[in-house]
């Protein structure tokens, strides 16, 4: 269990960032489910509750999700259920239970770039930007490649468009971490294939995405894209599955996801 010496609830992001960067032991609090598993000695804990960072809004061309929005908010959001074939609600709906999803937050999850993350895989299949207080706004794919820097993730933006998307995961049992997860999206001729929990972090398979975008999703094209994703990406072993198993299952999940995208309205 972590300990907290002092606690602040800043009124502005500027103040929150100032406290965060004052001392290495100062820490932003999300839902604390992950922090709780460790034994960090937090000097000053920074609670973002007063900064209006919870909620899902449609703003112009984007759907905006605040950092303190919980997974349960994503899961039951009418806007998100209606958008992209409900891929975001689907991606979080198997994580532990309702009571847990009423706690864990979008900001902590995206900022922490967890390899096993179900949400990151689905977000990466969409046109997603992240906004950080200091580093500003950038595409999610760029943020995931960057080396970690102390900052506050404030919001996630998803471009509203006609993108169709499907999410697939493989779990040894309900509510366990995923062994592997896949999200596939299609917007007009552009396809995107994302594979996460490899157990490394979600990544776009450029080759599989290109194969589908250029060659179309014929049965042969789908099989070829699935093979390319399994060849291009790297897989590792942990207690949930071996690298070989993940690689084999990657082909299966990609094939299923692409086939289902074709059936999406």
């Amino acid at each position, binding site marked *: 269990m*972590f300990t907290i010496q002092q606690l602040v609830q800043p009124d502005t992001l500027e103040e929150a960032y100032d406290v965060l960067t004052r001392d290495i032991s100062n820490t932003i609090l999300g839902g604390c*489910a992950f922090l709780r598993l460790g034994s960090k000695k937090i000097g000053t804990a920074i609670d973002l509750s007063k900064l209006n960072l919870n909620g899902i809004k449609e703003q112009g061309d984007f759907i905006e999700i605040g950092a303190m929005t919980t997974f349960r908010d994503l899961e039951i959001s009418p806007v998100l259920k209606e958008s992209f074939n409900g891929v975001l609600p689907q991606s979080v709906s198997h994580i532990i239970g309702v009571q*847990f999803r009423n706690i864990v937050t979008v900001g902590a999850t995206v900022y922490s770039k967890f390899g096993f993350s179900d949400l990151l895989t689905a977000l990466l299949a969409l046109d997603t930007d992240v906004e950080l207080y200091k580093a500003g706004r950038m595409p999610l794919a760029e943020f995931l490649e960057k080396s970690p820097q102390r900052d506050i993730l404030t919001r996630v933006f998803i471009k509203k468009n006609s993108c169709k998307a499907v999410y697939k995961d493989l779990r040894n049992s309900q509510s366990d971490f995923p062994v592997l997860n896949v999200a596939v999206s299609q917007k007009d001729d552009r396809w995107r294939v994302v594979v996460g929990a490899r157990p490394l972090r979600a990544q776009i398979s450029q080759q599989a995405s290109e194969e589908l975008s250029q060659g179309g999703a014929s049965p042969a094209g789908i099989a070829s894209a699935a093979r390319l994703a399994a060849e291009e990406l790297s897989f590792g072993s942990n207690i949930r599955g071996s690298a070989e198993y993940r690689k084999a299952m990657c082909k299966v999940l990609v094939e299923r996801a692409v086939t289902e995208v074709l059936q999406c309205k």
Partner: protein
Amino acid sequence: MQIEAIINNKKVAWEIENDELLADTLRAKGLLSIRQGCDTSCCGLCTVWIEGKPTLSCTTLSFRINGKNVTTIEGIQEEAAAFAQVLVAEGADQCGFCSPGFIMTVLAMKNELKNPAEEEIIHYLTGNLCRCTGYMGQLRAVKKYLGVE
């Protein structure tokens, strides 16, 4: 720090530590229905409602209930007893250690979902672990209680 909250319809002002967890605070204040079955936020035994939403009290820092409504099973005894009777009649209650958290989740589901299908019930209740039973009796009891097939 000091927090003010409404616990089971009663206004309280409590002195708490910054890193105190709600499960510990509630038990220390005599709400002994709160049980903990894990260290990793994944058993559901410690479930309470915060503003009506089922939440793990073992994972929620106590300062976060400041200004909020919290309900434990002590606060909804009639409703809980009505469901508990069905649960017992179906033989779905053995050692009973998981019952308070499970009942709080079932009652939250009743408030949130209208006529849920079996699949929705299972989805809502996943994450409530019980080491004694096989879940089938509980599922029968929940369906009977909700009056759904």
